[in-house]
């Protein structure tokens, strides 16, 4: 700053001048400043600014931010952009709940509507968690008149609902053209009522039914949109319930997300008063829609929201506007739907169906599983009266036709949620099973077997099946006996069974670690142990090996019809990249053949299909039992199916069950990687010592150059980098930005940490002082459509260069200068996948892993000119290289997870010894989708910093519900014809 008047003086004179009237100020300043022209200049220019500033900065900044956001067209995805697995085709519109796009699901080759939730919404983790659960429930709704919610797609901090794409105008568009004739309006009304009824049966309330939420397809099919979304997306109640639920009519106008605006006309009086909605609120909205279809006028209307709500609360619709030719039953239906006191309103939309479906269809309603609506529902009297009226009027007015043949077995989907305090116990196995008749669902939750009769609302815990906490021998893999009376399972080194009616579990046979259990109808139980398949009589006895040495670990056994062929999954032993295989093997000849690579958990079902699991999807493919061959392409039949794997990933199981009677059950959700771990030191002899750090889902531990601190990524919802102080034993958050941060690399002087970050909506790389002071600085960034992450892995010993892995596309190595302009340039891009570069301590070499030989192996090249040669370090698989600080030793992880050591014997030419095993694979070396180095080495090279598996998984994002599909074989035959 230049020499000049001190701020203190400028301020003093300026403020004193403000105390004078404006016309006296100039004189005052002249006098106060005397000879000091510079001071006077400063004060005068400030006074000019003061005079001309107007309302500058008077309005709080948040207003201008809001205005700007309003002007934005949302997240603005364009044609060809990718959101998760979906390709954007076209922008369809925007609403309070986000932008809607037409998008392509390339896996199913179908078009969907993708509702991308506002980014702002995504930040609230409580809300998001609740939303995920709601979405799961909504996804279980399956009805021809409900636009399906296929699922939730999440990508880098953004969420989108994947919805059925429905073409055609909305009912609001139709009504805008005038009243809808009765013979058209009735089928519409009936379909809407059927949609509501189906949802209400599952306890789902629409809450926001209105003509704009109802689509009419060209063939006359009606689809109700956005079922239950209003609730799913609303915020958690504010601290003071009085604020959000206050019975003033202005409250809804400020309801979150502006959902209520434009909806006020269809809002029930109880909702307008801020009370909770129930299915009667949907009946109200249905009445409004019905009225509006027939009159082209809103039942309740006002100049603005308050006016409209006042009408809802106090006025009656203009009944005279209804066409004169309406049957009395229909008028009564509308009037009874629009009773302001919900206790007097039609309580069940089934009553509306009686009226709308007409007498010939009334039997259809009673025919369904429901016992007898007339006695079951409190609306019995109304319904009965309506039916009576309809009986008289029927011939005259009923024109709506429910056409088409009656389906013999309707496919029904519903969710069986866990209790709030329950959590699946999978333990590397499949936690669910169905009885052969499809009437009972068994599942393991909270380390205990539970049975849910599917005609009941409650599950029954089976006593005597509880496992101890943190026991590696927890109960797993339930399976039913062919007569459905017993449930078998494995626990604590034994195969056991328990009666579905209760009683003490009975031990069948010892088995150190059994998987893939199956109960065959001639009274034997099959199971896999390691690479053997064994058989034991159900009455107990000594297991007998029927297939030995399969060259891999076996899971998911099934004896195919004819009893001479066995179907199972093999997880090849000891190789990271080899895929699991679904195989069949003849028990007579021992001949084994692979049916499918990359799939697991195959079941043959009597429809002639092989159903199996791959990457969160259930697929089906026609299977010829005689030829033992699949034919045609596999077709996805269920999405978002959970799986479980052991920490070692030696085996994995899909969380599915299929009964021979045709019921499918699966755990909805994805495998959760957030498993708590601890940090341990392990010396060269394998002696382990805890660092005392709390259990967290740690990945990528990085020791500071002096070995006193550890920067480590915590793989929880927040995805931040934390700092563990080795001496003081404290864990502190290092990155506080809400964006995801992963991966860290220390500068050689230990003063700074470079890290990968998604802040600013890009795959970026930043650095910051290691003591957390100062602000982070951006080093580089790529747009997400090029790469998913930019991961700093290594900084040259002189601190001048940084090497990073760019992942998401095909991983490859980039380099950037840390001095001057940090522009990233490609270092190594061979077209194979390269990652995890590590510069040697002398700065002349770089070790990295590459897929060029078909599996990841570790290689060394000269650095920084990487073109001068290439030396393989591992030859039978290796990843995550690291140099000892002496530069004389290299480490890597072999495919079994063991830590390997190699001596660097000479630098010129580069010569290494033979890799030798240092530590076995009992530490966490791989977390799904996290491919970076999971260990580090102490500065003296004598101890390794490893991640050790901790207790049971974090439950915040664990699956919470089992989806059950009854008569699923009908759907399977439709989706995957076998002829």
């Amino acid at each position, binding site marked *: *700053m*230049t020499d*000049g*008047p*001190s*701020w203190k003086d*400028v*301020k003093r004179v*300026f*403020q004193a001048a*403000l105390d004078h009237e404006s016309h006296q100020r100039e004189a005052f300043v002249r006098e106060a400043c005397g000879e000091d022209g510079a001071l006077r200049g*400063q004060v005068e*220019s*400030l*006074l*000019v*600014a*003061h005079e*001309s*500033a*107007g*309302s*500058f*900065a008077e*309005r*709080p*900044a*948040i*207003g*201008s*931010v*809001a*205005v*700007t*956001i*309003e002007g934005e067209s949302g997240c603005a995805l364009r044609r060809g952009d990718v959101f998760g697995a979906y390709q954007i085709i076209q922008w369809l519109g925007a609403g*309070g709940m986000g932008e809607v796009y037409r998008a392509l699901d390339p896996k199913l080759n179908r078009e969907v509507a993708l509702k991308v939730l*506002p980014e*702002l*919404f995504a*930040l609230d*983790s*409580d809300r998001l968690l*609740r939303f995920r659960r709601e979405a799961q429930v909504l996804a279980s709704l399956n009805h021809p008149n409900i636009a399906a919610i296929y699922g939730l797609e999440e990508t880098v901090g953004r969420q989108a609902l994947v919805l059925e794409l429905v073409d055609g105008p909305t009912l609001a568009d139709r009504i805008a053209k005038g009243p809808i004739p009765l013979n058209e309006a009735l089928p519409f009304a009936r379909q809407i009522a059927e949609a509501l009824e189906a949802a209400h049966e599952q306890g789902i309330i629409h809450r926001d039914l209105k003509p704009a939420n109802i689509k009419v397809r060209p063939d006359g099919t009606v689809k109700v949109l956005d079922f239950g979304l209003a609730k799913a997306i609303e915020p*958690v*109640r*504010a*601290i003071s319930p009085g604020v959000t639920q206050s019975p003033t009519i202005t409250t809804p*106008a*400020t309801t*979150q*997300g*502006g959902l209520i*605006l434009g909806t006020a006309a269809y809002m029930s009086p109880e909702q307008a008063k801020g009370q909770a909605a129930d299915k009667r609120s949907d009946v109200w909205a249905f009445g409004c829609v019905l009225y509006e279809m027939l009159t082209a006028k809103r039942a309740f209307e006002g100049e603005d929201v308050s006016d409209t709500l006042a009408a809802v609360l106090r006025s009656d619709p203009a009944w005279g506007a209804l066409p004169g030719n309406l049957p009395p039953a229909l008028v009564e239906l509308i009037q009874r739907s629009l009773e302001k006191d919900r206790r007097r309103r039609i309580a069940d939309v089934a009553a509306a169906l009686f009226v709308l479906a007409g007498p010939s269809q009334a039997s259809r309603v009673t025919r369904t599983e429901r016992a007898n609506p007339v006695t079951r529902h409190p609306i019995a009297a109304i319904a009965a009266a309506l039916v009576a009226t309809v009986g008289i009027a029927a011939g005259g007015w009923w024109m709506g036709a429910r056409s088409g043949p009656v389906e013999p077995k309707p496919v029904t989907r519903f969710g069986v949620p866990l209790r709030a305090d329950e959590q699946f116990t999978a333990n590397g196995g499949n936690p669910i099973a169905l009885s052969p008749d499809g009437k009972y669902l068994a599942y393991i939750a909270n380390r205990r077997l539970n049975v849910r009769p599917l005609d009941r609302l409650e599950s029954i815990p089976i006593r005597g099946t509880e496992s101890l906490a943190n026991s590696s021998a927890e109960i797993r893999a339930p399976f039913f006996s062919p007569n459905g009376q017993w449930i078998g399972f494995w626990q604590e080194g034994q195969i056991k069974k328990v009666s579905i009616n209760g009683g003490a579990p009975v031990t069948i046979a010892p088995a150190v670690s059994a998987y893939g259990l199956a109960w065959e109808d001639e009274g034997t139980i099959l199971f896999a142990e390691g690479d053997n398949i064994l058989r034991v009589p159900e009455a107990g006895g000594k297991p007998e090996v029927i297939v030995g040495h399969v060259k891999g670990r076996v899971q998911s056994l099934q004896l195919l019809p004819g009893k001479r062929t066995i179907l199972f999954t093999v997880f090849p032993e000891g190789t990271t990249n080899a895929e699991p295989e679904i195989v069949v093997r003849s028990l007579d000849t021992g001949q084994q053949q692979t049916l499918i690579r990359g799939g697991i958990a195959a079941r043959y079902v009597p429809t002639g299909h092989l159903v199996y699991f791959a990457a969160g999807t259930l697929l089906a493919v026609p299977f010829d039992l005689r030829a033992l061959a699949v034919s045609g392409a596999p077709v996805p039949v269920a999405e978002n199916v959970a799986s479980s794997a052991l920490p070692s990933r030696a085996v994995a199981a899909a969380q599915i069950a299929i009964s021979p009677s045709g019921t499918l059950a699966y755990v909805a959700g994805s495998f959760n990687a957030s498993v708590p771990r601890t940090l341990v030191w392990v010396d060269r002899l394998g002696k382990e010592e805890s660092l005392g750090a709390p259990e967290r889902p740690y990945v990528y531990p990085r020791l500071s150059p002096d070995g006193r601190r550890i920067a480590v990524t915590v793989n929880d919802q927040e995805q931040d980098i934390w700092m563990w102080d080795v001496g003081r034993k404290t864990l*502190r*958050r290092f990155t*506080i930005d*809400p964006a995801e941060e992963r991966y860290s690399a220390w500068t050689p002087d230990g003063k700074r940490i470079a890290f990968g970050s998604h802040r*600013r*909506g890009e795959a970026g790389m930043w650095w910051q002082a290691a003591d957390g002071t100062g602000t982070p600085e951006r080093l580089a960034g790529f747009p997400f459509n090029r790469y998913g992450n930019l991961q700093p892995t290594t900084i040259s010993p002189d601190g001048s260069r940084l090497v990073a892995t760019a992942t998401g596309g095909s991983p490859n190595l980039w380099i950037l200068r840390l001095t001057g302009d940090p522009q990233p340039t490609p270092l190594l891009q061979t077209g194979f996948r390269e990652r995890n570069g590590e510069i040697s301590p002398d700065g002349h070499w770089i070790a990295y892993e590459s897929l060029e030989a078909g599996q990841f192996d570790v290689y060394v090249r000269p650095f920084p000119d990487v073109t001068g040669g290439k030396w393989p370090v591992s030859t039978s698989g290796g990843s995550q290289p690291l140099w000892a600080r002496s530069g004389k030793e290299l480490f890597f992880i072999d495919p079994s997870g063991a830590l390997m050591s190699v001596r660097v014997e000479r630098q010129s030419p580069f010569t290494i010894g033979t890799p030798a095993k240092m530590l076995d694979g009992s530490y966490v070396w791989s977390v799904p989708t996290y491919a970076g180095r999971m260990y580090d080495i102490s500065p003296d090279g004598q101890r390794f910093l490893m991640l050790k598996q901790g207790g049971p998984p974090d439950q915040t994002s664990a699956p919470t519900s089992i989806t059950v599909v009854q008569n699923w074989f009908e759907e399977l035959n439709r989706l995957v014809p076998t002829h």
Partner: protein
Amino acid sequence: MEPSHRTVDRTTRATGLLLAWGRGDLQARNELLPLVYRELRQRAAAYLRRERRDHSLQPTALVNEAYLRLVGQRRVRWQNRAHFFGVAAQMMRRILVDYARAHHAARRPGAGLRVSLTEGMSAAPPMDCELLLLDQALNELAALDPRQAQIVEFRYFSGFSEQEVAEVLSISRSTVTREWQTARAWLYRRLTTGPDRGAP
């Protein structure tokens, strides 16, 4: 919706940190920052969505709600509350600047910090770009006069009234008025005439 365990834990933790900071533990302040930041950011996001249609913006309410959520009605000394609001004002500034930056990434100000505010424009809410410029200018003001910069954070970024600022900072209302007027004039001059004539 009942409060989740997470919320309860966070409340307890935030209060504990606030009290620890009051006892002079500066590390506690550092740990409190991200809690306040996250809380405010969530609430700001909610507000911004809602306010698209309703322009009666009340950022003060936002900060107050954050306080109630994180600290609640517990008995903490006035000094602690003032600490909290100070932090909250700082965080609000950061959140809004982040928003503005995200929406106008391409228009980040360079070294020659200067814009023309015409008579008409000055009455309108400043554009994002100007918010960013103001943020940068505020850093310069902070070097010159930290208290004035803090008052701007309270007034402009958190929407506190002069009276509220006076209470939080334990200074007289008239001092707040004078300091605010001075800061505003300084910032306006800085943004309209550039740094050369603006120093100090």
